[in-house]
Protein backbone atom coordinates (compact mmCIF):
# COMPACT_ATOMS: atom_id res chain seq x y z
CA UNK A 1 0.00 0.00 0.00
CA UNK A 2 1.51 3.30 -1.11
CA UNK A 3 0.43 5.85 1.51
CA UNK A 4 2.33 8.64 -0.21
CA UNK A 5 -0.12 8.45 -3.11
CA UNK A 6 -3.00 9.33 -0.79
CA UNK A 7 -0.93 11.84 1.16
CA UNK A 8 -0.02 13.77 -2.00
CA UNK A 9 -3.70 13.86 -2.93
CA UNK A 10 -4.67 15.08 0.53
CA UNK A 11 -1.92 17.72 0.54
CA UNK A 12 -3.16 18.90 -2.86
CA UNK A 13 -6.76 19.25 -1.69
CA UNK A 14 -6.80 20.14 2.03
CA UNK A 15 -4.86 23.47 2.06
CA UNK A 16 -7.16 24.91 -0.61
CA UNK A 17 -10.22 23.96 1.41
CA UNK A 18 -8.73 25.45 4.61
CA UNK A 19 -7.92 28.68 2.74
CA UNK A 20 -11.49 28.80 1.53
CA UNK A 21 -12.90 28.29 5.02
CA UNK A 22 -10.45 30.12 7.29
CA UNK A 23 -8.31 32.41 5.11
CA UNK A 24 -5.11 30.68 6.36
CA UNK A 25 -2.72 33.55 7.14
CA UNK A 26 -3.76 35.63 4.17
CA UNK A 27 -2.97 39.35 4.20
CA UNK A 28 -6.06 41.55 4.76
CA UNK A 29 -8.03 42.26 1.62
CA UNK A 30 -6.86 39.19 -0.28
CA UNK A 31 -9.45 36.92 -1.79
CA UNK A 32 -9.53 33.46 -0.15
CA UNK A 33 -11.72 32.16 -2.97
CA UNK A 34 -9.27 33.17 -5.69
CA UNK A 35 -6.30 31.83 -3.78
CA UNK A 36 -8.02 28.58 -2.83
CA UNK A 37 -8.94 28.02 -6.47
CA UNK A 38 -5.39 28.74 -7.64
CA UNK A 39 -3.85 26.47 -5.00
CA UNK A 40 -6.27 23.66 -5.86
CA UNK A 41 -5.63 24.02 -9.59
CA UNK A 42 -1.84 24.09 -9.22
CA UNK A 43 -1.64 21.20 -6.73
CA UNK A 44 -4.14 19.05 -8.61
CA UNK A 45 -2.16 19.68 -11.78
CA UNK A 46 1.00 18.33 -10.10
CA UNK A 47 -0.81 15.24 -8.83
CA UNK A 48 -2.59 14.73 -12.16
CA UNK A 49 0.69 14.72 -14.11
CA UNK A 50 2.13 12.13 -11.74
CA UNK A 51 -1.06 10.07 -11.86
CA UNK A 52 -1.17 9.97 -15.66
CA UNK A 53 2.48 8.85 -15.80
CA UNK A 54 2.20 6.37 -12.96
CA UNK A 55 2.97 3.37 -15.20
CA UNK A 56 6.23 4.72 -16.52
CA UNK A 57 7.80 5.48 -13.12
CA UNK A 58 9.77 2.22 -13.21
CA UNK A 59 12.23 3.88 -15.54
CA UNK A 60 12.99 6.70 -13.06
CA UNK A 61 16.36 6.87 -11.36
CA UNK A 62 16.00 6.47 -7.56
CA UNK A 63 19.01 8.67 -6.74
CA UNK A 64 17.63 11.47 -8.88
CA UNK A 65 14.23 11.08 -7.22
CA UNK A 66 15.80 11.26 -3.75
CA UNK A 67 17.60 14.45 -4.72
CA UNK A 68 14.40 15.93 -6.17
CA UNK A 69 12.47 15.12 -2.99
CA UNK A 70 15.08 16.92 -0.89
CA UNK A 71 15.13 19.90 -3.27
CA UNK A 72 11.35 20.31 -3.30
CA UNK A 73 11.19 19.97 0.50
CA UNK A 74 13.86 22.67 0.75
CA UNK A 75 11.98 24.85 -1.75
CA UNK A 76 8.85 24.44 0.39
CA UNK A 77 10.69 25.66 3.50
CA UNK A 78 12.26 28.59 1.59
CA UNK A 79 8.86 29.60 0.17
CA UNK A 80 7.31 29.39 3.61
CA UNK A 81 9.95 31.69 5.11
CA UNK A 82 9.72 34.06 2.15
CA UNK A 83 5.97 34.22 2.65
CA UNK A 84 6.33 35.01 6.37
CA UNK A 85 8.75 37.81 5.48
CA UNK A 86 6.41 39.09 2.74
CA UNK A 87 3.50 38.99 5.17
CA UNK A 88 5.34 41.11 7.71
CA UNK A 89 6.49 43.55 5.00
CA UNK A 90 3.08 44.00 3.40
CA UNK A 91 0.90 44.14 6.51
CA UNK A 92 0.72 47.01 8.97
CA UNK A 93 -1.34 47.70 12.04
CA UNK A 94 -1.92 50.81 14.06
CA UNK A 95 -2.72 51.05 17.77
CA UNK A 96 -4.91 54.07 16.96
CA UNK A 97 -7.11 52.21 14.48
CA UNK A 98 -6.74 48.52 15.42
CA UNK A 99 -7.07 47.18 11.87
CA UNK A 100 -4.59 45.20 9.79
CA UNK A 101 -3.95 46.82 6.42
CA UNK A 102 -2.15 45.55 3.32
CA UNK A 103 0.44 47.84 1.76
CA UNK A 104 2.62 47.49 -1.36
CA UNK A 105 6.25 46.41 -1.06
CA UNK A 106 7.57 49.80 -2.11
CA UNK A 107 6.58 53.45 -2.24
CA UNK A 108 6.42 55.22 -5.57
CA UNK A 109 4.47 57.78 -7.50
CA UNK A 110 3.62 59.89 -4.51
CA UNK A 111 5.74 61.08 -1.65
CA UNK A 112 3.83 60.25 1.47
CA UNK A 113 6.26 61.83 3.88
CA UNK A 114 8.46 60.61 6.67
CA UNK A 115 7.53 57.29 8.21
CA UNK A 116 5.98 55.94 5.02
CA UNK A 117 2.73 54.04 5.03
CA UNK A 118 2.85 53.32 8.77
CA UNK A 119 2.99 56.99 9.68
CA UNK A 120 0.36 57.84 7.06
CA UNK A 121 -1.93 55.18 8.52
CA UNK A 122 -1.39 56.31 12.12
CA UNK A 123 -1.97 59.93 11.23
CA UNK A 124 -4.83 59.81 8.74
CA UNK A 125 -6.65 56.53 9.35
CA UNK A 126 -7.99 53.45 7.61
CA UNK A 127 -10.00 55.00 4.80
CA UNK A 128 -7.37 57.57 3.84
CA UNK A 129 -4.82 54.77 3.44
CA UNK A 130 -7.34 52.70 1.44
CA UNK A 131 -8.04 55.72 -0.77
CA UNK A 132 -4.32 56.39 -1.26
CA UNK A 133 -3.63 52.79 -2.23
CA UNK A 134 -6.63 52.58 -4.57
CA UNK A 135 -5.82 55.79 -6.38
CA UNK A 136 -2.08 56.50 -6.24
CA UNK A 137 -0.62 53.05 -5.71
CA UNK A 138 -2.60 50.85 -8.06
CA UNK A 139 0.50 49.50 -9.86
CA UNK A 140 2.64 48.64 -6.80
CA UNK A 141 -0.41 47.16 -5.05
CA UNK A 142 -1.16 44.92 -8.03
CA UNK A 143 2.45 43.74 -8.40
CA UNK A 144 2.71 43.10 -4.65
CA UNK A 145 -0.52 41.10 -4.75
CA UNK A 146 0.77 39.00 -7.65
CA UNK A 147 4.06 38.32 -5.80
CA UNK A 148 2.22 37.35 -2.61
CA UNK A 149 -0.21 35.14 -4.53
CA UNK A 150 2.57 33.35 -6.42
CA UNK A 151 4.62 32.86 -3.25
CA UNK A 152 1.59 31.52 -1.40
CA UNK A 153 0.74 29.09 -4.20
CA UNK A 154 4.34 27.89 -4.50
CA UNK A 155 4.35 26.86 -0.81
CA UNK A 156 1.63 24.31 -1.43
CA UNK A 157 2.84 23.33 -4.89
CA UNK A 158 6.26 22.40 -3.47
CA UNK A 159 4.66 20.58 -0.54
CA UNK A 160 2.46 18.58 -2.91
CA UNK A 161 5.42 17.98 -5.20
CA UNK A 162 7.46 16.59 -2.28
CA UNK A 163 4.77 14.06 -1.42
CA UNK A 164 4.15 13.26 -5.11
CA UNK A 165 7.84 12.56 -5.65
CA UNK A 166 7.87 10.38 -2.51
CA UNK A 167 4.94 8.47 -3.96
CA UNK A 168 6.71 8.06 -7.33
CA UNK A 169 9.91 7.05 -5.56
CA UNK A 170 8.00 4.42 -3.60
CA UNK A 171 6.35 3.12 -6.81
CA UNK A 172 9.68 3.04 -8.66
CA UNK A 173 11.32 1.19 -5.79
CA UNK A 174 8.53 -1.41 -5.65
CA UNK A 175 8.67 -1.96 -9.40
CA UNK A 176 12.40 -2.47 -9.32
CA UNK A 177 12.09 -4.93 -6.40
CA UNK A 178 9.39 -6.87 -8.31
CA UNK A 179 11.62 -6.93 -11.37
CA UNK A 180 14.51 -8.30 -9.31
CA UNK A 181 12.20 -10.97 -7.82
CA UNK A 182 11.01 -12.01 -11.31
CA UNK A 183 14.58 -12.26 -12.58
Amino acid at each position, binding site marked *: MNYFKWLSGLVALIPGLIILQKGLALPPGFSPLLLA*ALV*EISCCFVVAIAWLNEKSVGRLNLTKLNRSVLLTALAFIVCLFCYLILLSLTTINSPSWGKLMSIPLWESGMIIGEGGFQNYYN*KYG*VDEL*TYLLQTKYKGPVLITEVIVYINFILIFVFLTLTFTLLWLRHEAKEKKQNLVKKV
Partner: protein
Amino acid sequence: MLTKILLIFFVFATCLKGLGQTLVLAPEDSVQIALMKLPDSSFHKLVEKMYLQFFRGKGPGGQQITIDIMPPNNKLIVLPETLKVENYNNIIFIVDFKGFLYEYFHSGNEEMLSDFNISENEKSLLQWLKTLGMGTVKKSQMVREQRTIKNGDGTEQIQYVEVEKEVTANYYDAPAYSIISCSVSYEPSGADVYVVPRREWIETFKLADPPDEKEININVLRKLSYFKINKVENPLRIELNEKTYVVLFNLGGKLSFKYLLPSTAFKERNIISAKLK
Protein backbone atom coordinates in the same frame (compact mmCIF):
# COMPACT_ATOMS: atom_id res chain seq x y z
CA MET B 1 -7.34 5.86 -18.21
CA LEU B 2 -10.56 7.53 -19.42
CA THR B 3 -11.90 7.60 -15.83
CA LYS B 4 -8.71 9.32 -14.68
CA ILE B 5 -8.90 11.93 -17.41
CA LEU B 6 -12.58 12.57 -16.65
CA LEU B 7 -11.83 12.90 -12.92
CA ILE B 8 -9.00 15.34 -13.58
CA PHE B 9 -11.24 17.32 -15.92
CA PHE B 10 -13.92 17.45 -13.21
CA VAL B 11 -11.47 18.76 -10.59
CA PHE B 12 -10.16 21.39 -13.02
CA ALA B 13 -13.64 22.45 -14.04
CA THR B 14 -14.64 22.86 -10.38
CA CYS B 15 -11.54 24.93 -9.65
CA LEU B 16 -12.02 27.09 -12.73
CA LYS B 17 -15.60 27.74 -11.74
CA GLY B 18 -14.42 29.13 -8.41
CA LEU B 19 -11.75 31.14 -10.18
CA GLY B 20 -14.16 32.53 -12.73
CA GLN B 21 -16.44 33.91 -10.01
CA THR B 22 -13.56 35.73 -8.40
CA LEU B 23 -12.00 37.24 -11.47
CA VAL B 24 -14.98 39.46 -12.18
CA LEU B 25 -13.55 42.94 -11.75
CA ALA B 26 -15.39 45.68 -9.92
CA PRO B 27 -16.42 48.72 -11.97
CA GLU B 28 -14.69 52.06 -11.56
CA ASP B 29 -16.26 53.12 -8.32
CA SER B 30 -16.91 56.82 -8.44
CA VAL B 31 -19.21 56.51 -5.45
CA GLN B 32 -16.26 55.51 -3.31
CA ILE B 33 -14.43 58.63 -4.42
CA ALA B 34 -17.54 60.68 -3.80
CA LEU B 35 -17.93 59.25 -0.31
CA MET B 36 -14.38 60.21 0.49
CA LYS B 37 -15.24 63.81 -0.23
CA LEU B 38 -18.32 63.75 1.93
CA PRO B 39 -17.67 64.21 5.60
CA ASP B 40 -21.00 65.72 6.54
CA SER B 41 -23.37 63.35 4.75
CA SER B 42 -25.32 66.20 3.22
CA PHE B 43 -26.06 64.73 -0.15
CA HIS B 44 -26.28 68.16 -1.74
CA LYS B 45 -22.62 68.12 -2.57
CA LEU B 46 -22.39 64.80 -4.24
CA VAL B 47 -24.16 64.67 -7.55
CA GLU B 48 -22.14 65.08 -10.71
CA LYS B 49 -24.50 64.02 -13.46
CA MET B 50 -28.24 64.21 -13.66
CA TYR B 51 -30.55 63.29 -16.41
CA LEU B 52 -34.13 62.40 -17.07
CA GLN B 53 -35.15 59.59 -19.32
CA PHE B 54 -38.58 59.60 -20.91
CA PHE B 55 -40.02 56.43 -22.37
CA ARG B 56 -42.93 56.08 -24.73
CA GLY B 57 -44.21 52.69 -25.88
CA LYS B 58 -42.48 49.39 -25.41
CA GLY B 59 -40.29 47.14 -27.56
CA PRO B 60 -38.45 48.14 -30.74
CA GLY B 61 -41.05 50.75 -31.70
CA GLY B 62 -40.73 52.50 -28.36
CA GLN B 63 -39.18 55.90 -28.05
CA GLN B 64 -36.67 57.10 -25.50
CA ILE B 65 -35.42 60.60 -24.81
CA THR B 66 -32.61 61.41 -22.43
CA ILE B 67 -32.23 64.97 -21.22
CA ASP B 68 -29.14 66.16 -19.48
CA ILE B 69 -30.31 68.34 -16.63
CA MET B 70 -27.05 69.35 -15.06
CA PRO B 71 -27.98 72.73 -13.66
CA PRO B 72 -25.89 75.86 -14.15
CA ASN B 73 -26.41 77.41 -10.72
CA ASN B 74 -28.02 74.67 -8.71
CA LYS B 75 -31.36 76.43 -9.04
CA LEU B 76 -34.74 75.54 -10.40
CA ILE B 77 -34.88 73.87 -13.79
CA VAL B 78 -37.89 73.90 -16.08
CA LEU B 79 -38.04 71.27 -18.77
CA PRO B 80 -38.11 72.30 -22.47
CA GLU B 81 -41.52 73.39 -23.73
CA THR B 82 -41.27 71.05 -26.71
CA LEU B 83 -41.34 68.08 -24.40
CA LYS B 84 -44.85 66.92 -23.62
CA VAL B 85 -44.34 64.85 -20.54
CA GLU B 86 -47.89 63.47 -20.59
CA ASN B 87 -47.08 61.65 -23.85
CA TYR B 88 -44.51 59.49 -22.10
CA ASN B 89 -45.63 56.59 -19.98
CA ASN B 90 -42.45 56.29 -17.93
CA ILE B 91 -40.06 58.90 -16.60
CA ILE B 92 -36.83 58.03 -14.87
CA PHE B 93 -34.87 60.53 -12.85
CA ILE B 94 -31.24 59.58 -12.60
CA VAL B 95 -28.70 61.27 -10.40
CA ASP B 96 -24.98 60.62 -10.28
CA PHE B 97 -23.88 61.45 -6.79
CA LYS B 98 -20.84 63.68 -6.62
CA GLY B 99 -22.04 67.25 -6.95
CA PHE B 100 -25.66 68.12 -6.23
CA LEU B 101 -28.93 66.45 -5.64
CA TYR B 102 -32.30 67.47 -7.09
CA GLU B 103 -35.84 66.33 -6.96
CA TYR B 104 -38.25 66.01 -9.85
CA PHE B 105 -41.68 67.56 -9.53
CA HIS B 106 -44.62 66.86 -11.75
CA SER B 107 -47.44 69.20 -10.88
CA GLY B 108 -50.23 70.12 -13.28
CA ASN B 109 -48.73 71.32 -16.52
CA GLU B 110 -45.48 72.27 -14.91
CA GLU B 111 -42.54 69.95 -14.55
CA MET B 112 -39.52 71.14 -12.73
CA LEU B 113 -36.63 70.22 -10.57
CA SER B 114 -35.82 71.84 -7.30
CA ASP B 115 -33.22 71.40 -4.60
CA PHE B 116 -33.61 68.04 -3.02
CA ASN B 117 -35.04 68.30 0.45
CA ILE B 118 -34.29 65.03 2.17
CA SER B 119 -37.01 63.93 4.54
CA GLU B 120 -36.23 61.75 7.54
CA ASN B 121 -37.56 58.67 5.77
CA GLU B 122 -35.59 59.32 2.64
CA LYS B 123 -32.52 60.07 4.69
CA SER B 124 -32.61 56.65 6.27
CA LEU B 125 -33.27 55.06 2.88
CA LEU B 126 -30.39 56.95 1.30
CA GLN B 127 -28.21 56.04 4.24
CA TRP B 128 -29.05 52.42 3.70
CA LEU B 129 -28.32 52.77 -0.01
CA LYS B 130 -25.07 54.44 0.90
CA THR B 131 -24.01 51.49 2.98
CA LEU B 132 -24.73 49.32 -0.05
CA GLY B 133 -22.53 51.53 -2.16
CA MET B 134 -25.34 53.70 -3.32
CA GLY B 135 -26.31 55.00 -6.63
CA THR B 136 -29.84 56.31 -6.59
CA VAL B 137 -32.34 55.94 -9.37
CA LYS B 138 -35.63 57.75 -8.98
CA LYS B 139 -38.16 56.17 -11.19
CA SER B 140 -41.78 56.88 -12.01
CA GLN B 141 -43.52 53.59 -12.51
CA MET B 142 -47.03 52.53 -13.36
CA VAL B 143 -48.28 50.28 -10.57
CA ARG B 144 -51.47 48.22 -10.68
CA GLU B 145 -53.60 48.92 -7.59
CA GLN B 146 -56.77 47.33 -6.37
CA ARG B 147 -59.68 49.60 -5.44
CA THR B 148 -63.12 48.78 -4.06
CA ILE B 149 -66.00 50.82 -5.42
CA LYS B 150 -69.51 50.84 -3.95
CA ASN B 151 -72.30 50.54 -6.46
CA GLY B 152 -75.67 52.30 -6.14
CA ASP B 153 -77.36 49.11 -4.90
CA GLY B 154 -74.86 48.76 -2.04
CA THR B 155 -72.79 45.99 -3.62
CA GLU B 156 -69.04 46.34 -3.82
CA GLN B 157 -67.03 46.07 -7.00
CA ILE B 158 -63.30 45.57 -7.28
CA GLN B 159 -61.48 47.65 -9.87
CA TYR B 160 -57.86 47.61 -10.91
CA VAL B 161 -56.33 51.00 -11.61
CA GLU B 162 -52.93 51.87 -13.08
CA VAL B 163 -51.36 54.44 -10.78
CA GLU B 164 -48.09 56.26 -11.37
CA LYS B 165 -45.78 55.91 -8.40
CA GLU B 166 -42.28 57.08 -7.76
CA VAL B 167 -39.88 54.39 -6.64
CA THR B 168 -36.24 54.58 -5.64
CA ALA B 169 -33.81 51.89 -6.65
CA ASN B 170 -30.11 51.53 -6.06
CA TYR B 171 -27.15 50.36 -8.06
CA TYR B 172 -23.36 50.04 -7.63
CA ASP B 173 -21.12 47.76 -5.64
CA ALA B 174 -20.48 48.02 -1.93
CA PRO B 175 -17.87 50.59 -1.03
CA ALA B 176 -14.78 49.57 0.87
CA TYR B 177 -15.03 52.53 3.19
CA SER B 178 -16.59 52.43 6.62
CA ILE B 179 -19.56 54.59 7.44
CA ILE B 180 -19.57 55.38 11.13
CA SER B 181 -22.25 57.25 13.03
CA CYS B 182 -20.69 60.01 15.11
CA SER B 183 -22.04 62.54 17.56
CA VAL B 184 -20.58 66.00 18.09
CA SER B 185 -21.98 68.12 20.91
CA TYR B 186 -20.88 71.67 21.58
CA GLU B 187 -21.55 74.56 23.93
CA PRO B 188 -22.96 77.09 23.40
CA SER B 189 -25.27 76.01 20.59
CA GLY B 190 -25.48 77.90 17.31
CA ALA B 191 -21.86 77.56 16.27
CA ASP B 192 -20.85 76.78 12.70
CA VAL B 193 -19.25 73.35 12.56
CA TYR B 194 -16.69 72.35 9.92
CA VAL B 195 -15.57 68.73 9.69
CA VAL B 196 -12.41 68.64 7.60
CA PRO B 197 -10.42 65.47 6.89
CA ARG B 198 -7.04 65.94 8.54
CA ARG B 199 -5.17 65.07 5.33
CA GLU B 200 -6.98 67.82 3.42
CA TRP B 201 -6.47 70.22 6.33
CA ILE B 202 -2.72 69.75 5.99
CA GLU B 203 -2.18 68.99 2.30
CA THR B 204 -4.93 70.89 0.49
CA PHE B 205 -5.41 73.91 2.75
CA LYS B 206 -1.83 73.99 4.08
CA LEU B 207 -3.04 74.66 7.61
CA ALA B 208 -1.07 74.02 10.77
CA ASP B 209 -1.36 70.69 12.51
CA PRO B 210 -2.25 70.89 15.39
CA PRO B 211 -4.61 73.68 14.29
CA ASP B 212 -3.71 77.26 15.05
CA GLU B 213 -6.43 79.85 15.72
CA LYS B 214 -4.35 82.64 14.23
CA GLU B 215 -4.45 81.07 10.78
CA ILE B 216 -8.23 80.94 10.58
CA ASN B 217 -9.67 84.05 8.95
CA ILE B 218 -12.67 84.75 6.76
CA ASN B 219 -10.84 83.62 3.60
CA VAL B 220 -9.89 80.29 5.15
CA LEU B 221 -13.44 79.76 6.38
CA ARG B 222 -14.71 80.48 2.88
CA LYS B 223 -12.35 77.84 1.50
CA LEU B 224 -13.52 75.39 4.13
CA SER B 225 -17.21 76.04 3.38
CA TYR B 226 -17.35 72.74 1.48
CA PHE B 227 -16.88 70.99 4.82
CA LYS B 228 -19.39 73.07 6.75
CA ILE B 229 -22.16 70.98 8.21
CA ASN B 230 -25.58 72.05 7.00
CA LYS B 231 -27.35 71.12 10.19
CA VAL B 232 -28.23 73.06 13.31
CA GLU B 233 -28.95 70.18 15.68
CA ASN B 234 -26.92 69.78 18.84
CA PRO B 235 -25.55 67.19 19.43
CA LEU B 236 -24.84 66.85 15.77
CA ARG B 237 -25.19 63.41 14.26
CA ILE B 238 -23.07 62.72 11.20
CA GLU B 239 -21.87 59.75 9.21
CA LEU B 240 -18.14 59.69 8.69
CA ASN B 241 -15.42 57.50 7.24
CA GLU B 242 -12.79 55.77 9.33
CA LYS B 243 -10.15 58.51 9.19
CA THR B 244 -8.97 61.50 11.18
CA TYR B 245 -10.95 64.73 10.98
CA VAL B 246 -10.30 68.20 12.32
CA VAL B 247 -13.54 69.60 13.72
CA LEU B 248 -13.61 73.37 13.73
CA PHE B 249 -16.26 75.27 15.74
CA ASN B 250 -16.88 78.91 14.93
CA LEU B 251 -19.24 81.06 16.99
CA GLY B 252 -18.99 84.63 15.78
CA GLY B 253 -15.22 84.50 15.54
CA LYS B 254 -14.68 82.40 18.65
CA LEU B 255 -12.90 79.29 17.48
CA SER B 256 -12.35 75.88 18.93
CA PHE B 257 -10.78 72.72 17.47
CA LYS B 258 -11.10 69.03 18.15
CA TYR B 259 -9.78 65.93 16.46
CA LEU B 260 -12.36 63.32 15.61
CA LEU B 261 -11.20 59.78 14.87
CA PRO B 262 -14.28 57.68 13.97
CA SER B 263 -13.48 54.06 14.53
CA THR B 264 -15.21 50.71 14.25
CA ALA B 265 -12.84 49.20 16.82
CA PHE B 266 -12.91 52.02 19.40
CA LYS B 267 -16.53 53.20 19.40
CA GLU B 268 -16.09 55.52 22.39
CA ARG B 269 -14.15 57.82 20.07
CA ASN B 270 -17.20 58.41 17.89
CA ILE B 271 -18.68 60.81 20.43
CA ILE B 272 -16.96 64.11 21.11
CA SER B 273 -17.96 67.30 22.88
CA ALA B 274 -16.49 70.79 22.79
CA LYS B 275 -16.82 73.96 24.82
CA LEU B 276 -16.19 77.23 23.07
CA LYS B 277 -14.23 79.69 25.17
